[in-house]
């Protein structure tokens, strides 16, 4: 019971002391505030990225391989891949015939152009030329109408399938099915609208794409680079075998000698995961660096102000000891004051971080589960505890005779 009353007294006195020195307390907490803002924003973005990544990756499908000239995330070796030969669209057909693991194979190639419907238009829309099998490799469902058919692809008909965002922005409330869309000046009949996919990693949207038969694409955009062969594998557990088989088929298609290196890349989700981990790693490292630095600054600030507080209140300590305060009672009184100042900074920092989170959210997705707020408060309490320890110990050792004489 005794300790409870002493704690209550310690809280009362600490609040009085902080209120009596508002500006000093606010300045002291600055380091803590910055530290808590940084740790909270870091956690919020890592958490947000993780969520965005999870929802995006599952929609893309982990059982799809992408044969491309470039590996994803080439890093510093990019020059090595620059001189590789382009991937040919015709590989798709060959792979479909030769592979025992592939259930769907679709070449795809894209370009940016302007699209128009009536008076509405959109610039820099990514138009993708592909085949009917793309719908199986893309892991996306059709919302309205249908995907393009084999016949339409073979005959290179002027039909298109549009992403959900295109349908919203260009057609508004109208049903786009059967209407004519102008792509780079040519008329295409809309046969289908894809289901909304959402943002990928929160940055690039897959919903603002237009899909047309690949033959049409080649006629419209003669420059042909960046071709991808999308291969959907029968069983995700066979994906390693499928990669080996595809390598063999590709090497044969490229007529590579046994001693020559692969001049193509087989990309997969796992690589995306690596990139994700890398991004998170960088955010984590930078965030942690800033956090630790500012918390050290904050801790020194709190410690400093606590030394001042102990010095200023030497007489008060003497009075308390004279009326029966033990060393321990004095110790917890100053510890609580340090913790209170520090967690005040923690709460202010948390509020700032949440507000800043709305800004950051425009660029990188963020999320705020309750544990992030708890971690922020906990960290500020621990910093307060650590930085208050030495001043509080010093206060507890004050000699009552000396301190009662102290002016």
């Amino acid at each position, binding site marked *: 019971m005794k300790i409870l009353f002493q704690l209550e007294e310690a809280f009362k006195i600490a609040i009085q002391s902080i209120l009596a020195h508002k500006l000093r307390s606010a300045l002291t907490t600055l380091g803590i505030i910055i530290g808590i803002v940084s740790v909270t924003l870091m956690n919020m973005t890592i958490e947000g990225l993780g969520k965005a990544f999870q929802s995006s990756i599952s929609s893309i499908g982990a059982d799809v391989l992408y044969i491309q000239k470039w590996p994803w995330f080439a890093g510093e070796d990019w020059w090595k891949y620059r001189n590789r030969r382009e991937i040919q669209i015709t590989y798709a057909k060959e792979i479909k015939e030769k592979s025992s693991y592939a259930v769907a194979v679709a070449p795809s190639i894209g370009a940016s152009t302007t699209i128009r419907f009536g008076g509405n238009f959109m610039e820099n829309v990514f138009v993708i030329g592909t085949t009917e099998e793309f719908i199986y490799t893309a892991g996306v469902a059709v919302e309205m109408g249908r995907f393009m058919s084999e016949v339409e692809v073979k005959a290179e008909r002027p039909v298109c399938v549009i992403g959900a965002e295109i349908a919203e922005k260009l057609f508004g409330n109208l049903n786009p099915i059967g209407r004519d869309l102008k792509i780079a000046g040519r008329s295409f009949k809309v046969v289908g609208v894809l289901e909304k996919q959402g943002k990928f990693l929160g940055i690039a949207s897959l919903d603002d794409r237009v899909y047309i038969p690949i033959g049409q694409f080649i006629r419209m955009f003669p420059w042909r680079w960046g071709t991808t062969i999308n291969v959907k594998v029968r069983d995700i557990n066979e994906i390693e075998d499928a990669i080996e088989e595809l390598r063999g088929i590709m090497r044969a298609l490229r007529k590579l000698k046994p001693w020559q290196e692969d001049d193509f890349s087989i990309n997969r989700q796992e690589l995306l995961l690596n990139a994700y981990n890398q991004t998170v790693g960088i955010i984590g490292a930078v965030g942690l660096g800033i956090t630790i630095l500012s918390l050290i600054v904050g801790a020194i600030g709190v410690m400093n102000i606590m030394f001042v507080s102990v010095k200023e209140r030497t007489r008060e300590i003497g009075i308390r000891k004279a009326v*029966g305060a033990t060393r321990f009672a004095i110790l917890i009184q100053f510890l609580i004051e340090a913790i209170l100042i520090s967690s005040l900074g923690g709460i202010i920092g948390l509020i700032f971080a949440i507000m800043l989170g709305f800004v950051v959210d425009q660029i990188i997705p963020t999320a705020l589960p309750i544990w992030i707020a708890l971690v922020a408060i906990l960290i500020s309490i621990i910093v307060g505890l650590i930085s208050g320890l030495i001043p509080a110990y010093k206060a507890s050792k004050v000699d009552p005779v000396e301190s009662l004489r102290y002016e």
Partner: protein
Amino acid sequence: MTMPLIKLENVVKIYDLGAEKVHALRGINLEIQKGEYVAIMGPSGSGKSTLMNIIGCLDTPTSGRYFLNGVNVSELDDNELARIRNKEIGFVFQMFNLLPRADALHNVELPLIYAGVPGNIRKKLAREALEMVGLGDRLHHKPNELSGGQRQRVAIARALVNKPSIILADEPTGNLDTKTGNEILALFDELHAKGNTIILVTHEPDVARHAHRIIRIRDGMIESDEKVVDRIIAQKG
């Protein structure tokens, strides 16, 4: 024979200042009975403050023994001394020594907080103590809103609130004008009449003559210890 409230046996206090050793007390033998009103007198540097600190358990003797209520407090550690101060001793200082940011009630509550008395009882006891010193209408005034005499009354209420064995007053009128000082001394008379043991440390003979017994200290030793024959009875207000 009853046990004395305070018994000092050959108490010596030496301050080690590195270069020299200061003999503040050179062997004090002293007994004070319960209910006595004693003044300790002496010029500055005589050792009377040191003696007061030892009697008040703020300090421990270098050698010799000090029994308070039969307990040898010269052998106790810091925490036990804090408990003794809390339970047995009520201090009244020359500089009042109130917490500046706390109101009168909270200042008086302070010893009870460290004694572990629950809030509602604490408030009640503190209010009673303040009423007893005539400050029942000043409960929520801060020290800087009170006059010197009122501040000293708050300090006395704080000294009384734990019902200690000794009230130890160190120059309690030193910072007050004569009239206010007399009021405070009248309050001590009143407390003494109610059975409290009072030890008054002072260098003013007029103040000392309110007590029943005067102990004079010089150069760390007791110079004289005698009954007061011409006691001054303080006039109230």
